[in-house]
């Protein structure tokens, strides 16, 4: 993918350099506005990271290994503008210092990998991931497609650049002066390797890094996920749906309490001590120990301290005991939810 010197004519290189220039300019301006003093360290360190990731030896399905460019990772984490500049910087250092890719072909390599690669990766990732939650598996699939397609579209661009060379540049005898193969050879030759090994390498690294970041550092994925919803597994209606259903079922079943025989131990009113049937129930619940003749003085004094609006889950305006239970359950649950909503609102304000 790193085009060396001598494969493309100087005019092709100049044309691709000129085509890259507006992207560099716009990216730099946008980032300067957005990052200000963070621009230099962020791009430098991320370009260095991209450079190192390109050296990773990735085990691929089928037993082979390959190297990735990491352009989709950059586009997903930083966005297209920063990715264009970071990958371009890494490519410039690779070309000048490490001789990986030609100096005259810097513009072409940046155009293919940094610009086309970043834009395709970003567009595919955004398109497939949509507004999916950050932790959604859909984002891993989107990253895999972004990695695979970005490197293949970049390879296709390089193949077209190679393929037009023999048509445009040849000597008097017809011998190609630069890349020797026409489009019908250059494209399949380039794409076979990228549709298989290089594409898989990019797929593995992009999907793998996104899956890792979802678990370890999801904040890094927020930059290119502006509409991401919260994870349905951890919040919102979907996650609490079973709880709400269970709560509704319990509320409907509350009248079952009427069917229970006897009374709950200790939940007596002062009147129960003078009511013969209630006294029998108190004695039964207390292992046949006879209750006092009158209600204790303290109980009598405090019983009138607060009168509940729905005493004994039986609102006075209702004749049906079952409906009274159900209405009490609804009212009690609703009040509890309101208390928590209010508490949440207070905490969020702080």
């Amino acid at each position, binding site marked *: 993918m790193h085009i*060396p*010197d*001598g*494969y493309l*004519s*100087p005019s092709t290189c100049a044309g691709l350099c000129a085509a890259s220039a507006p992207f560099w300019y716009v990216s*730099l301006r946008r980032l*300067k506005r957005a990052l*200000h*003093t963070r621009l*230099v*360290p*962020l*791009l*430098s*360190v991320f*370009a*260095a*990271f991209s*450079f*190192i*990731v390109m*050296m*990773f*030896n*990735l*085990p*691929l*399905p089928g*037993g082979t290994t390959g190297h990735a460019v*990491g352009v989709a990772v950059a586009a997903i*984490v930083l966005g297209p503008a920063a990715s264009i500049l970071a990958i371009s*910087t890494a490519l*410039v*250092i690779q*070309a*000048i*210092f490490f*001789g990986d890719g*030609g*100096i*005259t072909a810097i513009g072409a390599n940046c155009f293919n990998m940094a610009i086309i690669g970043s834009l395709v990766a970003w567009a595919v990732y955004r398109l497939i991931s949509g507004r999916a939650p950050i932790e959604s598996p859909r984002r891993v699939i989107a990253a895999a497609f972004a990695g695979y397609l970005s490197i293949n579209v970049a390879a296709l661009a390089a193949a077209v650049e190679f393929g037009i060379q*023999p048509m445009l540049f040849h*000597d008097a*005898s017809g*011998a*190609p*002066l*630069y*890349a*020797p*193969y026409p489009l019908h050879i250059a494209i399949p030759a380039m794409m076979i390797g990228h549709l298989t090994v290089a594409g898989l390498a990019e797929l593995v*690294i992009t*999907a*793998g*890094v996104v899956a*890792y*970041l979802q678990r370890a*550092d999801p904040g*890094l994925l927020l930059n290119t996920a502006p509409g991401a919803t919260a994870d349905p597994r951890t919040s919102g209606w979907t996650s609490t749906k079973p709880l709400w259903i269970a709560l509704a079922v319990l509320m409907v079943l509350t009248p079952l309490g009427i069917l229970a025989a006897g009374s709950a131990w200790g939940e007596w009113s002062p009147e129960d001590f003078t009511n013969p049937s209630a006294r029998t129930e108190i004695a039964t619940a207390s292992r046949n120990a006879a209750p006092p003749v009158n209600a204790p003085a303290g109980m009598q004094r405090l019983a009138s301290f607060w009168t509940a609006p729905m005493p004994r889950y039986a609102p006075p305006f209702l004749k049906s005991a079952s409906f009274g239970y159900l209405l009490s359950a609804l009212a009690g649950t609703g009040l509890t939810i309101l208390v928590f909503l209010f508490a949440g609102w207070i905490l969020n304000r702080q």
Partner: protein
Amino acid sequence: MKSDFIERTLASLLSASEYAAHAESVAASRGALQRVDPRIKVAGLFALILVVAASRNLKTIAALFAAALLLAAVSSVPVTRLAVWVWSPVLFFTGTIAAPAVFLTPGATLATLGPLTITQQGLHSAAFLISRAETAATLSALLVLTTPWPWVLKALRTFRFPAVLVVILGMTYRYVFVILETALDMFESRKSRTVGVLEPAERRRLSAAAAGVLLSKSLHLSGEVHLAMQSRGFRGETHVMHDFHAGAADWCWLGGFASTAALAVWAGAL
């Protein structure tokens, strides 16, 4: 025993580190090109690379390759190192691409090998591709092997390269080695904890997790670097200091580069 992917990754990282260390030591030695003003050297070698790319004459490209060899010899650049680091990889990569062109390019038949036909145009085309790639790569290597990277960047600034990009390139180069060291440590520690053979899926997970950890560390590092820069007064303005002074010898070198390039352009166009 076949080396695993951790060892191969370690080898890649170490080889980049060794190359950089060797480049620095050669750049610091006393050779002819090392004494040339970096601005003149950058301009001269870039001009020669452009001429190689534009040339339509194999003899001209061969002459420029010979000139590059001469420059390497007078600049204490070991030819064996050039062979290992530059010529062999380029020959392997470009040779693989160029070899089929000998048979696939239509033209006058030179020889027949069974069903394959070697054409004159195919041979020419392959020779152009390999000679251009080798010569340009040698000239690029000469620039880096005889000039410290910060000087190359300062020289770029002389040619109106935007200051902010020069600063980013300089910092990137520095942090390449910081992150390279981190990656080396990560893989070495992982290797020391790995017993037996990992399943392919586990190896892929390990690589992706390593890249993810390195990404998190890199972004954390960029935050720390930013704070450090701010604490030293960085407010977004970038400046590159110029402290080059071209002497008479440097102007002679400029003349040499210019005349060689002009001669090559004239000869290459024939």
